[in-house]
């Protein structure tokens, strides 16, 4: 099992040493969300109304930004070949890469959400549920994103294709995520929404590493 954790630790160490990956995602998320009040206008009740949707769409898009780096960096310097030839099964290797991406790119988004939520005039318990929903739903972003990244690794302008492939599949997460936050704000039971998000994550956890591994076997040929 230590091969698996070694790979995750190595990827995290790489992300930490190349600090740019962190700051890029966070700054994109902050800038993208602050554009909405500038566009929609500063009325607080409107911002409160669109807050959950804006935050979720922002999280989706900034996660999308970092997706093609999951395999592309290793593909370019040849590490992907070596990783495929290791005795660690490719599905587990892909899962390790996905977990590393989730920790280095998606968790920071969750940590910064409260500040942005306040700027969008979101009530306190809404913020707490927003972070919970992001925490439960965001693994799907990395998992399905990894399948898209695997399919487009090694392509000249894979980034555009990646977003076209992956965004339609993000829609259920967006819908249940926003529903959970709006239910919390309206003091309605948000249990079912969170459970559905968890269901999506678990389902993706099973299917996506296998699909991503198949895509990588293709890319390495």
């Amino acid at each position, binding site marked *: 099992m230590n091969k698996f954790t070694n790979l995750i630790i190595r990827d995290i160490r790489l992300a930490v040493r190349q600090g740019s990956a962190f700051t890029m995602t966070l700054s994109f998320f902050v800038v993208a969300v602050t554009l909405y009040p500038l566009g929609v206008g500063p009325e607080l009740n409107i911002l409160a109304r669109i807050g959950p949707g804006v935050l979720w769409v922002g999280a989706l898009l900034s996660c999308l930004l970092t997706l093609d780096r999951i395999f592309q960096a290793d593909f370019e310097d040849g590490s992907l070949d070596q990783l495929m030839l290791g005795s660690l099964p490719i599905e587990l290797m892909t899962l390790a890469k996905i977990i590393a991406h989730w920790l280095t790119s998606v968790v920071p988004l969750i940590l910064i959400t409260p500040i942005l939520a306040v700027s969008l005039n979101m009530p306190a318990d809404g913020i707490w549920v927003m972070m919970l929903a992001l925490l439960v739903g965001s693994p799907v972003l990395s998992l399905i994103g990894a399948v898209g990244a695997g399919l487009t690794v090694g392509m000249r302008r894979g980034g555009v294709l990646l977003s076209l492939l992956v965004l339609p599949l993000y829609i*259920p997460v967006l819908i249940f995520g926003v529903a959970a936050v709006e239910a919390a704000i309206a003091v309605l039971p948000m249990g079912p929404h969170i459970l*559905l998000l968890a269901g*999506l994550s678990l389902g993706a956890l099973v299917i996506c590493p296998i699909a991503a591994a198949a895509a990588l076997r293709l890319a390495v040929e």
Partner: protein
Amino acid sequence: MAVDLHKFANPARFLRITSAIFPWAAIVTVLLLAVGLYLALFASPEDYQQGATVRIMFVHVPAAWMAMSIYVMMAISSATGLIWKHPVADLSAKAAAPIGACFTFLALVTGSLWGQPMWGTFWVWDARLTSMLILFFLYLGYMAIWGSFDDQSKAGKAAAILVLIGAINVPIIKFSVDWWNTLHQPASVATMDGPKIHSSILTPLLVMGLAYTSLFLTIFIIRVKAEILGRRLRILRLAHVED
């Protein structure tokens, strides 16, 4: 290096079968379309509530059926391609995709044309129309992935993986959009259910559905033949350059 035409190049048997079916499919399509259009436009009575707009349904509903069933057919043929390495499976999915995209687009256009008299605006975020729109994006993604690989056999496998992941997600998306629709259900909007399906409406609907299916089969045969000959052309050109 001697070039040897591997078995992918000319699946003669498949081509022979399809070109035999083709004339029959074309004739059946024309007949069914004639009967369907006659029933849809002339024979069936106007609906007491919606008036003549119900006639749009005879074009909208079959297109929506075809959009869904073609995507399922693509998923099945891609799965056989991945599992049994059948050489024509990927190409048949690639041939079907543009047809599916056209039917999805038609379903969207006719749906919004139906919506205008009913709701007063061309586009209402109705659950079915929204799912159809997302299905249209999945079709675009599928066709885009074929275009972005230079190695066609790799493109086939990548597209197969994508359509299988898509097929798993379609029911989830459908469920989540319905869930989303009930959450934001403005009281006044009447859903697309329309009148109880009366037999006088059902028969033209079924006939038009069959007509669209055989139309799909006819176009599909043309396109899959073009894909197979296209691959053969690529291989012969390479052989030509090689010697």
